[in-house]
């Protein structure tokens, strides 16, 4: 039963510029830069996601068994949950279960791509957890805002290649130490003029 459900609206300091960018409807590039920077700062702050490689490897083995129909129908249920009670562990483990249930084939392909897939998913989920879902309810309460537009812009920001670079960094530094935001690649005026509008 919903019984004193806890809805967090408080934003971590690193996420305030992101909230402003969402609220102001800033350019998607600005929003993406802020999201990537917030994530890159958050991961060391929270101590990274130390067991991410081990959980990804375990999920990969389970997915392989599922693909080979050798897992006795257990699937995601055989994925062991790390004992760590920090939120990022919970979030990563839930993403691993979700991937096993919805993208089994992709998780079964090879160990490295399973690791990367989980890392990308976990980083995005942290963005939703610390950022978007704390900002969205207040924005959506405004009847003049379009919920689909707000969530589409957010989704586009999380689809940016910098998120994958950040995820690769996380796999190299699972505890977050030394993790940095990928360098921004500024496009020249000439490149911008050549880029179709929908890609901007």
């Amino acid at each position: 039963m919903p019984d004193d459900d806890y809805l967090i609206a408080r934003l971590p300091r690193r996420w305030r510029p992101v909230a402003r960018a969402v609220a102001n409807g800033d350019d998607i590039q600005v929003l993406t830069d802020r999201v990537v920077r917030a994530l890159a700062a958050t991961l060391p702050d929270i101590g990274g996601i130390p067991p991410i490689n081990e959980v990804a490897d375990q999920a990969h083995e389970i997915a392989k068994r599922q693909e080979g129909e050798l897992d006795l129908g257990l699937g995601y249920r055989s994925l062991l949950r790390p004992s760590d009670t920090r939120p990022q562990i919970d979030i990563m483990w839930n993403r691993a279960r979700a991937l096993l249930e919805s993208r089994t084939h992709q998780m079964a392909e090879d160990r490295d791509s399973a690791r990367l897939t989980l890392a990308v998913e976990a980083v995005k989920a942290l963005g939703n957890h610390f950022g978007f879902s704390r900002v969205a309810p207040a924005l959506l309460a405004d009847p003049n805002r379009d919920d689909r537009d707000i969530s589409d812009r957010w989704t586009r920001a999380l689809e940016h290649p910098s998120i994958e670079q950040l995820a690769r960094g996380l796999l190299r530094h699972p505890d977050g130490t030394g993790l940095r935001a990928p360098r921004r690649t500024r496009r020249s005026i000439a490149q911008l003029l050549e880029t179709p509008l929908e890609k901007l």
Partner: protein
Amino acid sequence: MSIAVPEHIVDFRPGAPASGNRVRWGRDTFLSGRPVMERLSRLLPAHAADLMEVAAAAYTADRLIPRGRRDAYGLNWSRRFQLHLCVRLPGLWRRHVDRLTALLQWLTDDDWRFRFYQARWSQSPLDEGQGFLFGTVPPAAYAVLFSGGLDSAAGLNLALRDAPQGTPLAVSVATNPRMAGRQRDVLSLLAGENSAVPCRFGVHLGAGQAIEMTQRTRGFLFLAAGVATAWAAGLHSLRVFENGIGAINLPLIEAQRGSQATRSVHPHTLALTADLASAIAAAPFRITLPHLVRTKAELIAQTPLEANPAFAMSVSCDVGFSTRTPGARPCGACTSCVLRRQAVGAAGRPDIDAGLTYRTDKVPGILPEALVATLWQVTRLRRCLSDKRPWASLAYEFPQVLDVPAAHHDAGRAALLNLYGRYCDEWRRAGAVLGVDARRWGLEGRTAG
């Protein structure tokens, strides 16, 4: 900035040193089971009394030690407990402590450890000197949880209608007099004195002791009361009346993790509790959730109109029982109020709440935060259900649905998809009750599922 979580030792032993978190039964925390034993004219068996005391101890510790809230990352939401507790059967509890800690960790996100010691006679709150000559457990008795909320009232009404020859033992836990009074009133309107046996435990902390308000162990306390009462009556099952949407309680927004979306009567909670009870009693114990694939509105709609006065007395609001002001109105804005208002509207039973005024009522153009979060969840659910692979999409968007045992097989998945589809449709039909503009929230058109 990873945070080392300190361990809180909470000592319930008589003669525990006064330093630290010492808790004395009858002084710092109170547990009463005498009314239940008198109703049934039976003493609680040793393992039943132990279970109830273990649950009351966990509840006390949960309320004594505050969760950290200053850190916006939420790294200190979880706590670490070590409880020292005297029980009648310490060997038994040591053997099954892993089951107990798994249940508590699932309910609270906290880390729990226990040290059990041998209790001496009269050291424990449920020790009774005088036994009973003749039991008064009615024939065809069955145990049900009765919180005084709308679902438990509707479920009990249906149970009485479907099996008029049976007698429900309506088990409740009252943590304050207002709650006890309301449970008594709803039950007497629903069933009268002769068709249901009220079995009420009392649990409360001393003045000023209950600091933490989240009280995620409350579900365990209620379930333990149900199991202990069933055992005292010689029964091996317990029914819990809760609708499926509320029982599963998927997070409304992604910022909620783990137990921040309450799991009091989640099907997995019931499975873990039944597993613990079966191990402790060395006999199978079943806890059923008969309305798992019904929405709250569907549960209400099943009941006759004559039940409306009893339902009108029921309390759903999160702060409905905690306020000490007589005649206080429900807030109207918490997640529980939102679900009740939606359900009463969707069931076409506005009379239930006709005499009720909410503190936060409809204000044109302004929706309470919990309602916006609920609508955001409904929007996401609808997107999942309209996907080509709705189950994969639902599991991807709400991986918490995988915790429901029904999700482990195809028929269960189909039933869950159908449940959420109907729930989304209810919002399309009845959202206006809460001032929701269906077009603005994309709720037009039937939901797949």
